[in-house]
């Protein structure tokens, strides 16, 4: 695998039956070869020294259908946060193949030029029967004293060997967007049980720019008063699905928990909530087109005595959002929107070490909303 401006060193020995001592040996030999080859082990891509770097052990079980899509993300993660990367493909190996492994490295040219910064990679493959051996294999290869981060890209909480990896990890990153619609609360309850300091949902991380821009919209004293008289919130996401994606639920739950709203029911227009000053309707709908079930627009209206009408629209990977204010006066402006690539979201979460009470509150409120949503 070679990605533009990235260089992958693959040990020439290829995949072999798993043996921890031999794998460490392969890694050492790979660096020896890279150090002695004037052209570099990547056939000339190198220009300058090779630096082996590791800030974490990054353990990534990959669902085979998702693997091609996520591989470039992992390459980008190692650029932003060099790690010893364990990529796990459990199950696809032929029956009887048992546990196999191969080594390699993912290297990135330094921004200032002059050499490559490399993350070691150990790829583990297993047949179905030997998947339970994966945790012990990884345990034997972890770099001591570095945190272990489990990036769980499997669609669900998974089999026992995943549970074992979760116990082993200092930090677990999950993505409720990968779950079947309606099953997100299972993940959020798991997160609450394990503690939001140790388990993070990447769906929440995607909301950071939305939460920032919403906070900014209401920062002014005059606008702040309107938070108390909000009567309608409408969120639009891309795609045709009837069931809103997790980030939309979490943002709705966040607004509800921050503003003290209670969910009371559902009508044809959406969910019915109640604030201390009156009713609030919450509508969530797909655009019917586009990909990815991504939040694209939020429209908030507040009533007298503090009328307010604002619509925030953000598309794709744009780094600004259009904020249209209709009341108390009309104005349109482009506001910075901290869109982050997926790898940046992941690394941002790796750097966050605190418990996440706003997320826990938002998830509880979202789950309550989902119950009302499903009643009709």
């Amino acid at each position, binding site marked *: 695998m070679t990605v533009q401006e990235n260089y992958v060193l693959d040990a020439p020995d290829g995949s072999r039956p798993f043996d921890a001592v031999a794998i460490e040996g392969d890694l050492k030999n790979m660096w020896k070869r890279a150090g002695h080859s004037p052209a570099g082990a990547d056939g000339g891509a190198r220009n300058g020294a090779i*630096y*082996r*770097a590791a*800030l974490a052990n990054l353990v990534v079980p990959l669902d085979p259908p998702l693997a091609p899509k996520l591989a470039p993300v992992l390459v980008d993660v*190692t*650029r*932003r*946060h*060099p790690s010893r990367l364990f990529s796990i493909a459990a199950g696809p190996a032929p029956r009887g193949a048992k546990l196999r492994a191969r080594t390699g490295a993912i290297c*990135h040219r*330094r*921004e*200032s030029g002059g050499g490559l*910064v490399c*993350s070691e990679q150990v790829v583990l493959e297993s047949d179905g029967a030997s998947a339970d051996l994966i945790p012990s294999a990884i345990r034997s290869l972890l770099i001591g004293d570095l945190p272990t981060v489990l990036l769980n890209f499997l669609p669900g909480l998974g089999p026992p060997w995943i549970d074992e990896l979760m116990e082993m990890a200092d930090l677990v990153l999950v993505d409720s967007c990968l779950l079947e619609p309606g099953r997100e609360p299972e993940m959020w309850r798991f997160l609450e049980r394990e503690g939001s300091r140790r388990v993070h949902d990447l769906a929440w991380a995607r909301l*950071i*720019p939305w*939460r*920032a821009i*919403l*906070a*900014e919209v*209401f*920062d*002014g004293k005059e606008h*702040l*008063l309107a*938070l*108390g*008289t909000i009567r309608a919130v409408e969120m639009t996401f891309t795609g045709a699905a009837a069931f809103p994606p997790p980030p939309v639920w979490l943002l709705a739950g966040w*607004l509800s*928990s*921050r*503003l*003290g709203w209670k969910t009371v029911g559902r009508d044809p227009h959406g969910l019915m909530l109640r*604030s*201390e*000053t009156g009713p609030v309707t919450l509508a969530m709908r797909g655009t019917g087109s586009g990909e990815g079930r991504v939040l694209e627009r939020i429209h908030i209206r507040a009533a007298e005595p503090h009328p307010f009408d604002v619509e925030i629209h953000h598309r794709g990977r744009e*780094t*600004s959002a259009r904020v249209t204010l209709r009341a108390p006066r009309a104005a349109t*402006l*482009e*506001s*910075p929107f*901290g869109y982050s690539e997926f790898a940046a979201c992941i690394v941002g979460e790796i750097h*966050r070490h*605190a418990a*996440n009470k*706003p997320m826990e*509150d938002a998830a509880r409120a979202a789950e309550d909303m989902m119950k009302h949503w499903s009643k009709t």
Partner: protein
Amino acid sequence: MSPRGAVTAEPEARANPLREESVTLRAADPCTFIVFGASGDLTHRKLIPALFRLSKRKLLHPRTAIVGFARREYTDEAFREEMRASVESGPPSPDWERFAERLHYHPGVFEDHLAFRSLGRLLGEIEAKRGIPGNRIFYFATPPSEYAPLTRNIGAAGLAKRALRDERSAPWSRVIIEKPFGRDLQSARDLNALVHLVFAERQIFRIDHYLGKETVQNILVFRLGNGIFEPLWNNRYIEQVQITVAETVGVEGRAAYFETAGVSRDIFQSHMMQLLTLTAMEPPARFEADSVRDEKAKVLRTLHPMSPEEVARDTVRAQYSPGALGGTPAPGYRQEPGVNPGSETETYMAARIHVDNWRWSGVPFFLRTGKRLAKRATEIAIQFRQPPFSLFRSAGCEIPEANILRLRIQPDEGISLSFGSKSPGQELHIDPVQMDFYYLTSFGQDPPDAYERLLLDCNLGDSTLFARRDEVELAWEFMDRILDAWSASPRSPMAAYPAGTWGPPEADELLHGHGSHWHRL
């Protein structure tokens, strides 16, 4: 009951409940950077590359504009082309095309008030066209002699708005001033008074790019973000502190300025004093601008004021003579182009400084800086006291060196700790070994450029990494005693050192009385 932070009908006294600490995005306001001295070296080498990288990384607001102002006649197009040479070659990249749209130019002389009125009209047009709400950052990338006319004309033309109490609701104006902030205490006070005629203190960002370096910021994180170091950070455990800012370059086209400043004003009064304060300061109450700067100012207040006798004993000034650097012959300072052949300007300064407070009483701080030294290196070395009892002496074995903690500012940014370890074998030998942390190999990336960080901070209104008026004046107050003694006393002669060495032997003598020596870099 409403949950914590919930909004009721009359939330007058409440904070925004949607504003959480966890949302820490640094969103820059749209503004116009007005760079005075736009055809100069600083603009080419530092400012435009830093602004370009910020733009490329989407950290500048999409509507932000940059206006260059200098004497030279450029069109916008010619200015853009000239600036492009400082960031890329070959055909223009898409990133550059986007950045170039932000760039404008206005020719003018700093003393010409009419040029500032015309600049005001241009700014109005750009702001209207790009939807910038009047926010302006004035950058003085000029020799200090131009600060006075610049400030007067900005004020007279009404280009800057004086800060209101609630800056969020009004267009803001800020000014970035490059060091040196004056050449002595009186001129620093005069400059501050002048700038204050137009700008309030919180609008003034005195830039010392050293403070924007990641490793300098890491001094505080290292000290105060870890449990193990701060308890040792005092005279009970620390024997001495050495701070070195060594340059291999000479005056490099800055002879006219350097002849009037010397290394004492160019580096010692600014960079070195900042490194000293960050090393010696008490933990601030909060990590925000005024708390941090209050503590730095306190250190400057407790510096032992040197008498003329102490200046003669505890400071060394020197000038480089011809030598060789990295295998290449190097001229002496007086042979450099533009330097007076009889110059008495110092290119090297070393000092033994005492911080008269509870924490540091009795701990000497040795500071040295110089041009054309053997290596380019900046570091702070904390030397710890030896163990109270030498357990291994009976085995014929001495601990060879004290433990030294090195904070490397540049190059190879990082931190290392040296300690003694038994070398392998039957006999008991203790050898010094190192534990190293390098930014590059740990984080896989080089620290970002200091100017990027500081320009963004100014845009965000965060002045933590900029010098405050009292810091600057206190540093000059300390320096003035040394400079006055040097100029008045024949007991402070100019020493000499060959280019490419580590300075004059007189500087080594500062440490001899302490049974010590300058650490090898």
